[in-house]
């Protein structure tokens, strides 16, 4: 922890970063995002196995961008999202200094997209064992059973948009959900409104989701909505052989035509 705090302090003191985004202890000791802009702020930074949330969503926020160069304490999810945001040209290559903290507390500076790419390549799969089990369970269901499952889960949705707001890839300036001239998707959190919202979001994350699970963790009513976006992502992976969050140079599979694309989905 001291190594990380000292590193953050040095970066701020030497002007290599104007803000360091990391984690601090929150209510009841849980880990929450933290923003260090002064030496005193760095004392709040913590790092341990509970620092699981994806912090990359803050990188595209105008309030943060205005502050200058950003360094970010990055777990695997944050690093993958950083690469994907770079690939989608939301962040300039090498605009962000990622700080990867090892189990022994040592800090590695990942200053370039290439360094992040190499680091991520050595990391284990994004999905937890429990999520993988749920994904397999859903895959083993019939189409009707899956419909019943999602109908039951989505009826709890209150359309608070915590999933969207927590997702680093949901950076659209104006989300389709917020368009009201014309209004494409029903606003109320009734069955149709909820179904359309989550289907549209999952489709928009197909080929872009880094499988961090942040949307599912953010949901106040416990809908495992990340299983839907992860499914969409893995479907693209299977069909087009590329994975979001693996490289800073990635063409959006659903927005790119290649002569050798499989066309088996056209029936």
């Amino acid at each position, binding site marked *: 922890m001291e190594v990380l705090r000292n590193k953050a302090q040095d970066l701020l003191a030497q002007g290599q970063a104007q803000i360091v985004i990391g984690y601090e202890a*929150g*209510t*009841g000791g*849980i880990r*929450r*995002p*933290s*923003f260090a802009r002064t030496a005193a702020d760095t004392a709040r930074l913590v790092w341990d196995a509970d620092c699981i*949330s994806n912090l990359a*969503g803050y990188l595209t926020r105008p*309030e*943060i961008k205005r502050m200058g160069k950003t360094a970010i304490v990055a777990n695997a999810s944050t690093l993958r999202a950083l690469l994907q945001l770079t690939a989608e040209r939301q962040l300039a290559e090498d605009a962000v200094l990622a700080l990867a903290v090892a189990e022994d507390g040592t800090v590695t500076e990942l200053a370039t997209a290439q360094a992040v790419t190499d680091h991520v390549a050595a990391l284990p799969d994004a999905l937890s064992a429990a999520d993988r089990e749920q994904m397999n369970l859903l895959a083993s269901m019939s189409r009707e059973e899956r419909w019943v499952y999602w109908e039951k889960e989505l009826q709890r949705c*209150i*359309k*608070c*948009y*915590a999933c*969207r*707001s*927590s997702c680093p890839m949901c950076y659209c300036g104006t989300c389709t959900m*917020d368009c009201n001239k014309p209004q494409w998707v*029903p*606003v*109320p*959190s*009734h069955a149709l409104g909820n179904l359309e919202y989550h289907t549209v979001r999952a489709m928009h994350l197909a080929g872009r989701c880094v499988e961090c699970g*942040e949307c599912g*963790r*953010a949901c*106040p*009513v*416990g809908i495992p909505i990340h299983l839907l976006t992860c499914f969409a992502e893995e479907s693209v992976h299977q069909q087009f052989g590329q994975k979001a969050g693996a490289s800073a140079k990635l063409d959006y599979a659903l927005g790119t035509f290649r002569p050798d694309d499989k066309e088996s989905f056209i029936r």
Partner: protein
Amino acid sequence: MTTILKISAESLEALFAALGDSGRRILGPTETDGRVDLGEVQTPAQVADAHLQLTLSAKEAVFPRVERLLSYKTMPGKVELNDAEPDIQPTVLFGLRPCEASGFGSLDSVFNWDSRDKFFNARVEQMTVVGLSCTQADDACFCTSVGGGPGSTKGSDLLLTPLADGHYLVEILTAKGEEIQALAPHLFQPAVNEDKEALLAKLEPHFDREALTAKLPGLFTSELWAEQSLRCVGCGACAFVCPTCACFDIQEEADTKEGQRLRCWDSCGLRQFTLHASGHNPRSAQAERWRQRIYHKFSYFPQRFGEAMCVGCGKCTRACPVDMNLKEHLTQACGT
């Protein structure tokens, strides 16, 4: 005048049966997959055990997330307009925490402010609140800082406090509470020398709400709000789980032949909140929306109605994806 009695666990079960026989629906906290929802129950055994709070709030019982206000059909030369009538049945809300129960007072101030809301009032009239005192609290709780308490009777028609011997102390607080007692008076016993205070959770106040309200007008341009809101991701979870947040949005769902007008929960956390038709938004940054949340609850509302629009339940803190702890932020504002 409050009547203080006690009831055994067995008698409570019989009371549930009597409530059912009287045609009342009982809604209580029920647990599913670690979540506590307000669900229909028939016996006390179905009520969640040792839960701290509902995940959402009981405001749903009087202010649902989607309410149809009217519907219409257009025909050549005329429009057929139908007012919606709320589908109401006599309901007992059982086992609400005192904070949650007191939230109905805030909602009442809003829904009966300049006109009487038909839907809200129809439900409240048919509703009886059986509160349940808190014997535990967590780091998000701060009811004692906003005028409430773990055993507060405000908003309850009848308040239960668990006693060490498995009985409940029963405070009968209103005429509606007396009606419940009158359904089965034999189930209640006299309570002698029970020390209610000793049974309650201990929760020290963290800040002085009136001092905060007095201070806020001078902090409007403070950097504090930008600093506090840096972490906020701009969703509506806090407002939607809040027992007192009453902002709503009117949505029209229509095609060329028919339509309906719906009232839906809204939240100041969302970027479309207060977006004008011109495209201008007076609260275009998250810092301004966060400030609005604090000021509405602790400055504007108390100025108008004399009380904070917050019961200190801490639901917003627990629901927040990034732990925007309201107690902590208000305490910080008091010290600024």
